């Protein structure tokens, strides 16, 4: 595989940190690097201003201090929220939501496997009854992860009823964790967002929902914020999953998303392999991002 680490800002920042001293170029370059990483103009300005004032306060001229400060600032901002998944209920119901094509189904496959490695019993519910062949795609992942799947009884079945049946089965079989796949929906489609609310309500008749995970694609730009806000409002999202970090996108917008919505990042996906999903640790993330 091509360089896995290209995700890091490292190359963009090398010029800065390798320089001899801190001057105006440093700030321009830093700003450029952050914007290129999708941090967005507002957050970028804040971070640059913050580091600038620190540099003035400590009267340093060593660019390597800037690197350290950047790492700390990013880590500090990321660490404000608790990334722990809360799956103590039995059954713990996890609803996975997001816009089209962000990798919900793939994430579920990987997440199921992730939970299996901790020896939890898992069942997945194929409540994406809209997209062609989505059920089959999930079935393939379920098989790879070695977990059970509840399929819709007929084509185009109401997704809420599939979700309901999945939880019902989990309760009957004593399965510990239920993961429900939902159809991708753009956050601007009122009707589809209402459908999400319905799925939630119906499931809650069976068991409380432990987590609603919003899957965000790292290649997304500033629109990620609008997505998170809409899904938070209609779907009661409790955490974020950042996917496709194996590409060249840095997903800097999650910082703004976290801060604007208060939603913590809980999982990150970095590939199409079944093992390519990990928990989120601010320290590691900042380390990798800044280098």
């Amino acid at each position, binding site marked *: 595989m091509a360089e896995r680490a290209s995700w890091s800002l490292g190359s963009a920042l090398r010029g800065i940190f390798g320089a001899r001293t801190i001057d105006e170029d440093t700030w321009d370059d830093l700003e450029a690097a952050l914007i290129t990483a999708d941090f967005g103009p507002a957050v970028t300005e804040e971070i640059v201003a913050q580091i600038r004032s620190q540099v003035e306060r400590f009267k340093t001229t060593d660019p390597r201090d800037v690197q350290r400060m950047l790492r700390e600032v990013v880590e500090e901002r990321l660490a404000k929220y608790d990334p722990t998944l809360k799956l103590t209920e039995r059954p713990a119901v996890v609803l996975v939501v997001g*816009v089209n094509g962000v990798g919900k189904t793939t994430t579920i496959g990987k997440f199921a496997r992730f939970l299996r490695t901790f020896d939890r019993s898992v069942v997945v519910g194929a409540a994406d009854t809209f997209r*062609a*062949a989505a059920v089959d795609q999930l079935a*393939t992942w379920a098989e790879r992860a070695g977990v059970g799947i509840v399929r819709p009884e007929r084509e185009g079945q109401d997704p809420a009823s599939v979700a309901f049946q999945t939880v019902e089965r989990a309760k009957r079989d004593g399965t510990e964790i239920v993961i429900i796949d939902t159809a991708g929906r753009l956050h601007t489609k009122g009707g589809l967002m209402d459908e999400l609310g319905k799925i939630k309500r119906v499931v809650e008749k069976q068991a409380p929902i432990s987590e609603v995970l919003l899957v965000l694609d790292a290649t997304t730009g*500033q629109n*990620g914020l609008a997505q998170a806000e809409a899904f938070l409002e209609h779907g009661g999202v409790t955490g974020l999953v950042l996917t496709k970090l194996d590409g060249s996108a840095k997903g800097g917008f999650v910082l703004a998303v976290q801060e604007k919505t208060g939603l913590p990042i809980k999982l990150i996906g970095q590939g199409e392999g079944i093992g390519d999903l990990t928990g989120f640790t601010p320290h590691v993330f900042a380390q990798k991002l800044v280098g």
Partner: protein
Amino acid sequence: MATFGTLSDRLSETFKQLRTKGKLSAADVDGTVREIRRALLDADVALDVVKAFTATVRERALGDEVNKALNPAQQVVQIVNEELVGILGGQQRRLQFAKNPPTVIMLAGLQGAGKTTLAGKLAKHLVKEGHTPLLVASDLQRPNAVNQLQVVGSQAGVPVFAPEPGNGVGDPVKVAKAGVEQARRALHDVVIIDTAGRLGVDAELMKQAANIRKATDPDEVLFVIDAMIGQDAVATAKAFQEGVDFTGVVLSKLDGDSKGGAALSVASVTGRPIIFASTGEGLDDFEPFHPDRMASRILDLGDILTLIEQAQQAFDEEEALKVAEKLAKEQFTLEDFLQQMQQLRGAGSIKKMLGMLPGAGGMKQQLENFDEREIVRTEAIIQSMTPAERQNPKLLNGSRRLRIARGSGMTVTDVNSLVQRFEQAAKMMKTVARGGMPQIPGMGPIPGAGFGGGGASARKAKGKKKSGGSRSGNPAKRAAENAAIAQGGPVPGGAAPTGAGFGLGGGAAKGGQAGPSEEELAALQKLLGR
């Protein structure tokens, strides 16, 4: 993004500070350009593209082009729009079909960009145009992508060539090649090859895509990109351009609320045209790409631009020149008066037009009070006159006035007051046209921006009236306004709540041939007898 407000709003703020200035200084331009830069970044346009773009705008804005114009702020907006449309639509084109069928179309893009769905949409679109497409399932990577294509194909009523089950089994290059062969045998005139999603950094998969391209020699390679993509658009687009050298771009998921700055980045970095836009999950949600719509979506300037356009069309310069000439010759008649009024109406509903002006919020109440039907009524009265009467209002004796009142469905009093107001206005205009400052008791300074914006042009007009070449074209209205104020009545309501809306209204409208500004409206209203 609701949190930052639209660029229209922010530019309004910037323009507000410009209202007393006739020309843009370098600092003004920088302020405007900074806002544009910020807005472009918020819209996810790639940083390099933003830099190049704003540099061009700045250069043009500081050039002669702008300084000669009457309203530089508007001009800046226009430059921005022209540049945007230029990049987005410079090379708009349709699909190119092969001389010898089958035409081979290959789809490529990141995971989740919407390739498979697009394959179905494109197929359906082609069927509608009378083609017989064949879908080829070369995405053997993603679980059940082959199934999905089959379902999409059956929805579109198009056959699918899928010899391999997918899920990692089979060679996509062979499948693609066999697909083209199959099409040739079965006489399909278009082949659409769906390929697996791949990351720009994944050299191995990129090589596979290049191999598919080599094996099938497609007439079009369409790069499908998600409209929501951020700064990575450039890296991805470049990688795909190097990898498979696509010939056109399809923008997907445009039905969301992203600004779609990626379109600008990709078009600008690769120079490849955007051919289609995909706007929903249904197979019919697919349309050719419209550069102008995209431009206004990215920068959210639609309203200002529509206004500039409308105003320019309605108030053409020649007419304004004629009026100025007439004024100089003291021949301003009711006919000219009517014509001016009709021009105003030609600009579309005045209320609507004012509503479009950014910053018009402050004058909402004003707008509510303004009754457009007044113009219609005045029109009716004037149109009930004979041409001779219009040329020479002195002809209007009692019986004529009664006839006119009947003809227009108004009362004689209405006719009287119109004539009176017209005469006062005409008198005032003559004074102004002669170069004199009308002596108006109790006028004091013209309220608000009267002198800042419009007033300046009035003064200018006064200075070189004989040339008639002044673009202000406004002296008539200007004088009318003075007349209205001169009537001694309470200063038109417009003067009271001026403030924010005022400057802007004037700012956008003072361009000589632009729409009516607030004070003009107020004056007009006054003139009409209310």
